[in-house]
């Protein structure tokens, strides 16, 4: 019987279908997804154009700032992909219907992560392609290591987004702004635009515990030294396994707390 399936791709697909229907119906949503990464790319493209003439560091690798901003957007959008998809269920007051259906909580987690992948690709890919003709910068020039950078940032963003979704489930829509602001606390520690060596010594252990810090170090290694740092990619991936597991367990715990406190039928504006 299907209801006893431990994991059902059909049920995960049902959740994805629900959100793909929303995207299909609303071109402003699609446009909104791609809009901000595009604006960021334009802004940093002009800054790069200026700095190439005035900064030796940037002149050594003119694509460093645009690559960094595009990769940061992968993390940011992946976080939003999970948290906003979950928030949409709360805004729609649909959470109760989902939790009385056979969809298991961990299938919901899988569906949120997959939906986040889709939303992140829709968000970042147009800006990445347009950077080539507009500023002569191709993030794809990072080569095969780009796939590991992208995957690691995607995974980390999903973990952050899932932790935020868990907090929103526990504390209600009053906590929804976390989806947009919380991830920025990671930005200074991730060394997006600068090597993490510049951080104070006492912050270094925290930065090194973030997969994003190793990703951006890896990006600079390719751009400045033409070196593919697979060790950094592996370290980031190992950390992502920890964060992914921790955020999933935290989310499942908050679902249980919501069941204890009777929150699942009360969600909504």
């Amino acid at each position, binding site marked *: *019987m299907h209801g006893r399936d431990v994991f059902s791709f059909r049920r995960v697909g049902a959740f994805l279908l629900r959100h793909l229907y*929303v995207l299909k*119906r609303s071109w402003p949503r699609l446009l909104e997804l791609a809009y901000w990464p595009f604006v960021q790319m334009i802004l940093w493209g002009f800054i790069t154009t200026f700095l190439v003439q005035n900064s030796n560091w940037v002149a050594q690798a003119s694509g460093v700032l645009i690559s960094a901003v595009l990769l940061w957007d992968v993390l940011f959008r992946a976080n939003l992909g999970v948290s906003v998809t979950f928030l949409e269920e709360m805004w*729609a*007051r*649909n959470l*109760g219907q*989902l939790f009385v259906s056979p*969809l298991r909580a961990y299938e919901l987690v899988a569906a949120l992560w997959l939906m986040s992948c889709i939303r992140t690709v829709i968000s970042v890919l147009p800006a990445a392609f347009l950077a080539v003709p507009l500023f002569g910068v191709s993030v794809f020039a990072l080569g095969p290591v780009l796939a590991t950078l992208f995957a690691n940032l995607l995974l980390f963003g999903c973990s952050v987004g899932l932790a935020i979704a868990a907090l929103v489930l526990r504390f209600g829509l009053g906590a929804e702004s976390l989806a947009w602001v919380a991830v920025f606390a990671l930005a200074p520690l991730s060394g997006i635009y600068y090597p993490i060596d510049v951080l104070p010594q006492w912050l270094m252990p925290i930065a090194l515990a973030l997969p994003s810090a190793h990703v951006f170090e890896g990006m600079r290694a390719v751009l400045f030294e033409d070196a593919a740092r697979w060790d950094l990619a592996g370290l980031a991936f190992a950390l992502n396994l920890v964060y992914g597991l921790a955020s999933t367990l935290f989310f499942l715990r908050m679902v249980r707390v919501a069941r204890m406190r009777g929150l699942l*039928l009360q969600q909504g504006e």
Partner: protein
Amino acid sequence: MPRSVPTPPADAIVAESLVKRFGALTAVDGISFTVRTGSTTGLLGGNGAGKTTTLSMLLGIVLPTSGRVHVLGTDMVKHRYDVLQRMNFSSPYVDLPRRLSVAENLTVYGWLYGVSDLKRRIRVLAEDLHLTAFLDRPTGDLSAGQRTRVALAKALLNDPDVLLLDEPTASLDPDTADWVRGYIETFRSRVNATILIASHNMAEVERLCDDVVMLRDGQIVDRGPPQDLIGRYGRQSLEEVFLDVARNRRVAASAAGS
């Protein structure tokens, strides 16, 4: 859809000593009841009596503080995913996504419940519930009554063995409400479903229910078939019985009746 279990238990729903506390508030206070397979039972009570909390515990989305809940022989605290596919639920207080069309919503939930031959099932339900003309319209654009019928269509998609309905005719005009009640009766007799209805509408409960559980302050204060209750309280209608119970006039009413 073929029925999943050929020999269902005698009691589809068994609640034993159910208690639910939210901090200092005791929403459900030690209730026990059973619902016979294939019967329709009404859960009656005023606002805050514990009806929705009880339904939520039966669905497994609220965990009891103590006590046991079994649906179709399955412990809903530990193994609810074993039976959720054979249950369904409708409430005016839980929406379907309003941006999705009716057909899209039914497709998504059809996938979630593993409904076979889904297109045909949606077509049949849409015809039965007079929704065919609205299938391609966003659910949020429909009137409250139309949305209630869509919610009912979703609740019937999987031909559930156990159907929990929270105020199934709320916000419907009398004509549509009467029609929906007729449809629920037809559905029950067609698939021998067990139905539990939480309602404030006494005429609805009198018409649909074989048995009534009356709640006040989280406790069961009486139960029995509607006509038995009316006779026991010496009243003309279930509404009068409800008022006696809600206003704690049982002793006086019983004395008057005797």
